[in-house]
């Protein structure tokens, strides 16, 4: 097979620049649909034929670049296409207010990058050759950079974008060096396929760590995450949805792809992965619970979910290392399903928060409130997303967490003491994360949508148009489908898991359990329906009354200022986790001799301690040292000649003494 239509679509994408500004959306959609249709076709074929599809793509410098679509790639292809297409529809509504502000080239560049982000992500999951892989990996970083800096008139956005670009290239170097080392060790191939033979001769640890740092930077594992909480809020909402929903998963894809080649020393690799994952998950959600910017909260929550995915994968690896097939199977299954689930509810939440932003123009939740009445559709959708991301039944997040839990608990009996300890740590962590996400998302939903408006930013808000609602509805339907009928997704999932573990019989055994869960959810919904019906009968007899909220008999208090706020909500948490959040209060106390106190202000904020202590402070120290070294830069030519002379003398001495 070849990829002619795919290639033509890539070339034709230049046409986007020549179409009139008002119609820019349509050629992009057309190309995007063509690419999505072809790749989805390949993906479906890979699942049906259960063997990899090989497609000729291009030849660069005599290197034949082939697309190889196996089940793992196919899974990612479907996830990417679904999220990108929903985001594309959503962008039509979201970008409308920006059209008068932006000129034609800017808008065209945005759509062009959008299309190429989709293409590059698809190519990344299909290419095995390192040349092609790295080229498209780079295109992915560049196109997403352009998408992030869409609102480039803001200084902050440009700064964030550059920081993102730099960090992506640091990751790039790590991935490239891993490829080069495996190439130099093995000698004939340059790419993932070289790893198979390389690992038969050399230890996998070094290569894995290099890949992990490189891919982990993309995925946002702590401590390589520091671009993520800044880039997601800066980008327009449809881009944040794609970046958080699927682009960071490309890092996970890379790690998974490398893992398919590793067959021994799995124990150490599992432990490395588990440590970083647990840390990312706990720290991510803990930091999220302190955020007042809803997009930043969602960004930290992405770090948490990357952690959960990592936990699933690493317990899979540990299960393989300790010969616990149930743990291996269900761990991988849970991790993989969570990739899909997170892409769904995270893009849903970003789009819904985009709706809020388009109406209120603020990202500060302390200025919001009471939006549930003005935007009931968005509120409902956001509620679904919040419930799903907290891992509650009957939504999809529960299913992936259930698979992990179920693997963990079923392996307890046959595990030895080391693996039992891991299992104990993992399920305790999962339970803690679950509770923390409930804490964070009740705050997020409660402060944005419930109660009384906190500022006039909310006053003019009204429900958004249909273009910004339909994609949300589609995602919600898929979320409910996975949540209510998970067993239909089990067969494709088991095929992917077999790529790692070699067998998938345990996943097939899970089908009746998942059916029971569907039944339980069904009964729950029926109960709720019956109760609703009974209550409406009751209300017909005794119509409900309305009144003010209970305020101890005093109704004069202004609910706008007396409500619980985001800060007060998280202060309960900071009392037990202050070591991890670095809460700073900015307040000048009133001295005793100040008889008429001057106006005062109080600001409290929390910082990301990892970013602060591991990245910002060392860099600041380094800069101080480097600034001191600036004394050598005098600007006088005589001094520079002196330096050159000194350098030559040193070289001579080193040469004479045979040091190097």
């Amino acid at each position: 097979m070849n990829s002619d239509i795919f290639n033509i679509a890539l070339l034709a994408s230049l046409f986007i620049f020549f179409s009139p500004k008002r119609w820019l959306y349509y050629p992009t959609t057309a190309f995007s649909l063509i690419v999505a249709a072809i790749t989805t076709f390949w993906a479906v074929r890979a699942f049906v034929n259960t063997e990899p599809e090989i497609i000729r793509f291009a030849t660069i410098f005599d290197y034949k670049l082939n697309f190889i679509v196996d089940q793992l790639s196919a899974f990612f292809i479907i996830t990417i296409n679904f999220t990108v297409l929903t985001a594309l529809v959503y962008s039509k509504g979201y970008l409308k207010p920006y059209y008068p502000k932006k000129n034609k080239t800017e808008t065209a560049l945005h759509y062009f990058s959008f299309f190429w982000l989709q293409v590059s992500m698809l190519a990344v999951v299909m290419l095995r050759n390192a040349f092609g892989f790295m080229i498209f990996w780079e295109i992915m970083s560049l196109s997403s950079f352009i998408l992030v800096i869409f609102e480039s008139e803001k200084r902050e956005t440009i700064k964030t974008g550059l920081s993102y670009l730099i960090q992506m290239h640091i990751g790039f170097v790590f991935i490239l060096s891993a490829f080069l080392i495996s190439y130099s060790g093995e000698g004939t191939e340059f790419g993932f396929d070289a790893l198979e033979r390389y690992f038969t001769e050399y230890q996998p640890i070094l290569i894995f760590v290099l890949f992990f740092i490189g891919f982990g930077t993309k995925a946002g594992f702590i401590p390589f995450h520091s671009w993520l909480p800044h880039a997601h809020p800066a980008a327009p909402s449809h881009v944040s949805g794609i970046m958080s929903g699927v682009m960071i998963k490309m890092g996970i894809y890379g790690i998974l792809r490398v893992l398919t080649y590793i067959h021994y020393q799995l124990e150490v690799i599992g432990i490395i992965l588990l440590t970083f994952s647990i840390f990312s998950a706990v720290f991510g959600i803990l930091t999220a619970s302190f955020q007042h910017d809803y997009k930043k909260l969602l960004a930290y929550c992405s770090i948490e979910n990357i952690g959960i995915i990592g936990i699933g994968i690493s317990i899979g690896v540990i299960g393989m290392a300790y010969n616990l097939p149930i743990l291996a199977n269900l761990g991988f299954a849970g991790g993989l399903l969570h990739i899909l689930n997170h892409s769904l509810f995270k893009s849903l939440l970003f789009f819904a928060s985009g709706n809020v932003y388009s109406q209120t123009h603020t990202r500060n939740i302390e200025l919001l409130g009471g939006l549930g009445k003005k935007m009931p559709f968005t509120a409902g959708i956001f509620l679904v997303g919040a419930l799903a991301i907290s891992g509650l039944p009957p939504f999809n997040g529960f299913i992936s967490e259930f698979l992990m839990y179920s693997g963990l608990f079923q392996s307890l009996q046959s595990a030895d003491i080391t693996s039992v300890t891991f299992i104990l740590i993992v399920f305790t962590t999962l339970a803690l994360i679950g509770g923390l996400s409930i804490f964070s998302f009740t705050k997020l939903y409660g402060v944005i949508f419930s109660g009384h408006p906190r500022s006039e930013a909310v006053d003019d808000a009204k429900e958004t148009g249909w273009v910004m609602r339909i994609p949300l509805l589609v995602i919600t339907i898929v979320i409910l489908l996975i949540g209510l009928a998970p067993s239909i997704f089990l067969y494709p999932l088991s095929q992917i898991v077999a790529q790692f573990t070699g067998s998938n019989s345990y996943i097939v055994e899970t089908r009746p359990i998942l059916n029971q869960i569907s039944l339980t959810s069904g009964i729950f919904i029926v109960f709720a329906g019956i109760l609703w019906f009974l209550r409406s009968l009751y209300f017909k007899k005794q119509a409900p009354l309305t009144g003010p909220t209970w305020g101890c008999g005093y109704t004069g208090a202004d609910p706008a200022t007396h409500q619980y706020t985001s800060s007060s909500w998280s202060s309960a948490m900071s009392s037990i986790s202050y070591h991890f959040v670095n809460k700073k209060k900015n307040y000048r106390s009133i001295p005793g001799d100040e008889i008429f106190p001057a106006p005062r202000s109080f600001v409290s904020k929390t910082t990301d301690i990892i970013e602060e202590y591991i990245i910002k402070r060392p860099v600041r120290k380094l800069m101080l040292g480097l600034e001191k070294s600036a004394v050598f830069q005098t600007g006088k030519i005589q001094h520079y000649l002196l330096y050159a002379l000194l350098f030559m003398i040193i070289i001579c001495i080193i040469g004479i003494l045979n040091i190097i």
Partner: protein
Amino acid sequence: MKFIPILLIIISALYIPGIISMVKAKTGGRKMPSLFQPIYDVVKLFRKNTIYSRLTGFVFKIAPIVYFSSVLTCLLVIPFGEFGGILSFKGDFIVFSYLLALGKFMMILAAMDTGSSFEGMGANREALYSWLVEPAFFILMGSTALFTDITSFEELFGMLHQKSSLAFSVNIAAIFILFFIAMTENSRMPVDDPKTHLELTMVHEVMILDNSGFDLALYQMASWLKFSIYGTFISNLLINPGLPIYIQVLWFFSILLLYSVVIGILESFSARNKMAKNTQWIINLMAVAVIVFLISMMITEKLILN
């Protein structure tokens, strides 16, 4: 036969709150109310009008329904002795725990929906405490899962009785944990005082301040059922499933009677924790659960001490 557990739970849910208030009245030197006083109260609530705050929206309306139906659905997975729940499958306790969390999520949002600072405060505390109590339950279930590779409620409890007498020591700690999880989940004494009259110091009661009529009745009944569910767990740890059925049922009712008397006495003679101390206190439960886990590891000879 599958309906036996559910029947027993519902019957005991009807008398537990009555007995608790009777014991509390007796120890407080007051005249004892009727055993059915809580039921009369709920019946009265059903006759009353429901009042909604002007600030509230759809979340406030669906929350009581979701909360009550989550508890009702949970009833289906609870086993009694050798009688499994109507739904019994591997990992049903995970569904149980997360369904209760779903109900709580909606209750918290409903409290936020009223725009009252009191209710926000209660919601905040509830969110914090239920976050902390969840791991204890999972570790406890994990330690019973060490004995068996089949991880449904039914098998977990059944297995404990077939193991050595050492398992009995696990039981005592497990009962302690389950008892206090029940108290925390229902917002009772050491964590929260249901009889307090100051909104600032309430947890659960303040969250449902704006609920009335039908909705309030649902919350009350859900709370009874929750008490009864945890009581059933405790009785499952104690009752030997080998006994004839009528003796088991007899044991069940006496254990639940004792359970409610203990709750009543505890509530009469203990003071509530300081709010700031609650978090520590709940984390203690988790620590006890870890000890249970370690002992279970020793019993199953995974951890061998020389």
